């Protein structure tokens, strides 16, 4: 641990004033701009989620009209997907830590990086602008399925343009990361000496780069269709709504791995640090990221098993869906094996990482159920899918996001949070989360369709359990966020390397100086996680 008492200027203090933030070229500041916006949108989206749960507490009308409910879940989905979860880990922690992990001082194209943030901001304005302009936010579901999305009078155009702009922002982030990884690794660091988070970002970036344009053009077609009044998916001119679904999912399935892979990268960082030993199966984890990214392109059809797709196509998509589960399971087993013979320091970030594994298991295994043709015929578009998607996205990526926040908090702010409060928030969050979403899986098996404003009386009990869970979840999240907020302002000073990590970001000061490193960072001998204090295995 370097205890450097020489005064230095942190990146916070290097320049002053709001302008210096909004036009910054420093990757760390861009990351923080993203962080604050993303947390804001998460809170907006989450509040909409709470509203839905309140409405669903009883069958029949409780607080909003059906039309409003439909707008709420659409806006909830759009915010959570495009404004929160897709940018969450790459744009915040990727931006902040990729250069640090690689031992460089910025991403390859700092200007482009700022530009992606601005695109993100513009996209966000469009998404929220639907609240004010036109006939309110879209009421189509986040999937914007034609032809309903073409017929409805709500402001679909603006929501779709928002998604388009946000997609562009995501493409540019991906592009930036790929070039950064290819060109800016510190001398001596080959691909196989890169930390696993960098690997996962590399895989993610390729998905962002190659899948996003497809949805871009698809959404443009929806816009054109609404503007000219006729279009490519309109059945009355021979168009095919099922083709729209193909185009949509060609992007949106790979997109779920944009959400999941960086989260897996985080977990692969946290576990070795807290087990104080090298990661088990470095190459298996690294290459399985690439495998997931690659196979992930070929399974989009599993969202369309009931859409009228042909039997042979369903057959192939189903088999490929199952194959994509294999590289994920390889990762899970390697993580567990990394705990074996470690010297485990049970601390908040590790708890989040392990909770990620637990939740993601439930999410992933329910995903397998969805992938089976017969089962999916029954479960498609029911609450089972809603349960699945929250388990993987919130229980998985969401937990990893909060885990990363707790892991790197001392590095970003140079302060330490109150661990007792953090652990309490964690425990209640885990419990509340499961009470909130497990009932949805049961409801789905019982046959309750999703996007339902009202439901049959037999579904009441589990809906009420779920709503109660949502209250626990809110409370614990508020505690979690307030705790971090307080710590950032007046927490105790944290050491430069509080967890004893050996990846390069821990070799600089907390918070890092403007140029990240003031001397050449040293790559650990024998792999990025080869802890010098641990016994070697033979």
């Amino acid at each position, binding site marked *: 641990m370097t205890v450097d008492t020489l005064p230095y200027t942190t990146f916070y203090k290097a320049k002053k004033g709001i302008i210096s933030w909004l036009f910054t070229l420093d990757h760390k500041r861009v990351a923080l701009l993203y962080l604050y916006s993303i947390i804001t949108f998460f809170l907006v989206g989450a509040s909409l989620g709470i509203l839905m749960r309140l409405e669903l507490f009883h069958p029949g009308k409780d607080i909003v009209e*059906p*039309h409003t409910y*439909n707008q709420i879940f659409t806006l909830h989905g759009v915010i959570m997907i495009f404004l929160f979860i897709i940018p969450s880990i790459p744009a915040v922690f990727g931006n902040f830590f990729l250069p640090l992990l690689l031992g460089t001082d910025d991403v390859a194209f700092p200007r482009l990086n700022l530009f992606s943030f601005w695109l993100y901001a513009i996209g966000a304005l469009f998404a929220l602008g639907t609240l004010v302009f036109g006939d309110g936010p879209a*009421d189509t579901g986040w999937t914007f*399925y034609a*032809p309903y999305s073409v*017929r*409805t*009078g*709500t402001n679909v155009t603006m929501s779709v343009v928002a998604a388009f702009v946000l997609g562009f922002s995501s493409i540019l982030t991906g592009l930036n990361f790929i070039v950064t990884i290819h060109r800016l690794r510190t001398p001596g660091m080959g691909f196989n000496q890169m930390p696993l988070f960098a690997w996962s970002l590399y895989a993610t970036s390729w998905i962002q780069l190659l899948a996003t344009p497809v949805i871009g053009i698809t959404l443009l077609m929806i816009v054109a269709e609404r503007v000219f009044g006729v279009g490519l998916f309109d*059945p*009355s001119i021979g168009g*095919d709504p*099922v083709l729209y679904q193909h185009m949509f999912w060609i992007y949106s399935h790979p997109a779920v791995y944009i959400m999941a892979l960086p989260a897996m990268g985080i977990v692969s960082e946290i576990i070795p640090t807290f*087990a104080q*030993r*090298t990661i*088990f*199966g470095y190459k*298996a984890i690294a290459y399985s990221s690439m495998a997931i990214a690659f196979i992930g392109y070929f399974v989009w059809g599993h969202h369309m098993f*009931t859409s*009228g797709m042909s039997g042979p196509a*369903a*057959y192939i998509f*189903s088999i490929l869906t*199952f*194959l994509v*589960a*294999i590289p994920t399971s*390889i990762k899970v*087993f390697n993580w*567990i094996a990394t*705990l*074996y*013979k*470690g010297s*485990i320091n*049970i601390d908040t970030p590790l708890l989040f990482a*392990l909770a990620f*594994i*637990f939740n993601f*298991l439930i999410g992933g*295994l329910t995903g*397998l159920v969805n*992938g*089976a*043709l*017969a*089962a999916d*015929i029954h479960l*498609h*578009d029911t609450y089972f899918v809603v349960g699945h998607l929250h388990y993987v996205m919130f229980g998985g990526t969401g937990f990893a996001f909060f885990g990363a926040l707790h892991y790197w908090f001392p590095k970003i702010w140079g302060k330490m949070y109150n661990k007792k409060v953090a652990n309490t928030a964690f425990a209640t969050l885990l419990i509340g989360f499961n009470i909130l979403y497990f009932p949805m899986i049961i409801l789905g*098996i*019982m046959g309750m*369709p999703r996007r339902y404003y009202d*439901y049959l009386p037999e579904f009441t009990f589990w809906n009420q359990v779920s709503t109660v869970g949502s209250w626990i979840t809110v409370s614990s999240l508020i505690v979690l966020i307030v705790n971090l907020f307080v710590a950032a302002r007046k927490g105790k000073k944290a050491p430069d390397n509080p967890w004893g990590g050996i990846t390069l970001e821990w070799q600089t000061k907390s918070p890092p100086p403007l140029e990240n490193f003031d001397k050449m960072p040293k790559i650990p001998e024998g792999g990025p996680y080869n*802890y010098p204090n*641990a*016994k070697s*295995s033979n």
Partner: protein
Amino acid sequence: MYASNFVEGVDFSLYFILAISVFFLVGITAVMIYFLFRYSKKRNPVATNIEGSWTLEIIWTVVPTILVLLMFWYGWVGYRPMLTAPDDAMEIQAVGQMWKWTFNYDNGKSSDTLVIPIDKPIKLNLVSKDVLHSLYIPAFRLKQDVVPGKDFSMWFIGQKLGRYDILCAEYCGQLHSYMLSSVTVVENDKFNTWLAEKQDNSNEHPGLTLMKKNACFSCHTTDGSRLVGPSFKGVVGRSETIIVDGKEKTITVDADFIKHKLQNPLSSNVKGFQSGLMPKLPLSDDEISHIIDYVSTIK
């Protein structure tokens, strides 16, 4: 006995995967928690660097692969029979439109709910008049999207007497969650008498019959309350604000306006209501005048 011929296959694939899932979930979680205690910093102050093991990697690649292939297989086995209906299946047309199901039988009978004979293959030919819907019978474990412009179908055999819910499982707009109906499985002879029952519309206003048939009442009420569209109560002669080409104007609703509205639903929009929802229905001039005739009687 299962409610339909598909229940067994679907449930088997579902519970087969769930069982394996529970095994892995419990197993992995237990091992994780055990390691957490066994190798905590207190109990095991010095860690051991283990780089990995290709034997293990291969084991935990191959075993899940075999398991998922099994899962795939049972999924396919349960699904395959859904693809092709037997030739002797009885065909019924199922029409989905915003927010109503209609079932048309070969003899011209049409009904809001589905009634089928027991133990007989039924083939539903699915037609959508507007947007996507999905005909979902949870008890039968069966679901198929209804796509405008495409002739898709689904088939099944009702194997147990009783009444089961039909739900719409594909989001289709405002009242998606109210697009409900039911399927009743009855004895064969009971079905035949039901099918032969003629619907007696002779003392009903022809306009009303037409409007029921076209599902006007899923959006419009006759008692003055607001649903999706304006109520028909006292429409004729009502003065209201409409929006044409983005400009507001005040008109008095009369027969001509209604006729125009039915022929070109998108040409105008009543202020305060969502535009774009009122469907364009293939109505002849005669039918339109019947409808107008009836609408004028709703006071």
